[in-house]
């Protein structure tokens, strides 16, 4: 079981994450609200997520494997228990809701395609990605 991430931890990295997001998306940092949908509200494209991950890695000196959010959301569930034919199972959707607890409940759809998971991502999602990567980094790095 992963250790819970506190709001204080999120707010500690949020200013840097927000600035990086604004730079990556070419928008004003004031538009980057903690619970904004990166795709729906900030017009992020898939390339922006790649860009964002590389920028976060450089800024926080951490390693963030691509696909890490979905991989962590799935946890120890087998892939076939998480999704089938590109659609999340009931168990997979429940797991995703728990993992992306920062995302307002009404944004989850049922049924939900796995390909639509990035539509849920918010700036706070990436704050948590950074915090998990910092925790996972060996001490002293």
């Amino acid at each position, binding site marked *: 079981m992963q250790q819970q991430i506190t709001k204080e931890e999120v707010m500690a990295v949020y200013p840097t994450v927000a600035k990086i997001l604004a*730079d990556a998306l070419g928008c004003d940092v004031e538009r980057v609200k903690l619970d904004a949908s990166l795709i729906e509200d900030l*017009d992020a494209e898939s390339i*922006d997520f790649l860009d964002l991950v590389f920028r976060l890695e450089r800024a926080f000196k951490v390693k963030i494997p691509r696909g890490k959010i979905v991989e962590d959301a799935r946890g120890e569930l087998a892939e076939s228990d998480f999704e089938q034919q590109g659609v999340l199972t009931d168990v997979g959707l429940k797991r995703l809701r728990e993992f992306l607890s920062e995302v307002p409940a009404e944004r989850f759809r049922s049924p939900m395609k796995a390909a639509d998971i990035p539509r849920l991502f918010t700036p706070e999602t990436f704050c948590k990605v950074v915090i998990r990567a910092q925790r996972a980094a060996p001490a002293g790095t």
Partner: protein
Amino acid sequence: MGGRFCAFSFVDRITGLDAGAGARGRFLIPAHLPRFPSPLVCEAVGQLAAWVAMAKLDFRRRPVAGLAGEIEFLQDANPGQVLNLEVNVESCDEDAIAYEGCAHVNGTPVIKLSRIVGPVLPMTDFDSPAAVRNDFETLVGEGAAGARLESLPELDLTPLERVPGKSLRAGLRIPADAPFFSDHFPLRPVFPGTLLLEAEMRLACDLAADALGGPPGASVTVIRTQDSKIRSFIDPGQTVEIRVVIAQPQGDEAMATIVALLNGKSVATGRMAVGLRKGP
């Protein structure tokens, strides 16, 4: 001669391959061309990296243009010269490639690319895996025929608005049909990101000329680009609006911020440092 493997192909031969990790290659700039724009040197380096990625992924997937953290333009490359290309791949998987690269002419560096990232997509969306594999075998074997590129793509730029030394807007009309589309890519024509970069560089230099001044006859050039990003594909027949805003010059350089819009939506962004051309 068909367009495939000719009209927008900038590697003649792969001279060294470290599977999945890097490569060296060469491209003879056809002597019959009137000039060779620097973004096409970037294209040559990028295509060499793409060959490394495609071979590693067994031609099931291919990279496309995405992000260029920094490109340094060090010197022009001219028709009749041989570009010696080199790429070092930092990572390459089913989703993305990250690499750096450079091109030299006669031992002198002409371009250096750092922090390049390209999304990796299914090959069958763009081309026949068997045909691409065959082209790769040619490149690592005896090499492709030289001077396959018959002519340079034309850019159809129309000025829309200009505030001298500060900003401009221009329309870039993408042709509905052009030879390079049959090579980029055979099954899914896409306007090459490096041609968009060339259009952006021309506009930035044009605007910066007002801001930088300089002695009579001085020309301006792009010194480096930073954080160039292609956010979505541009299709044949579309018209892109390019907006350039230039900051107050610092010394003999000025920084231009660029955004390219398609139907009001940003499809490419970036910054470039523009300065007075030094030397002959």
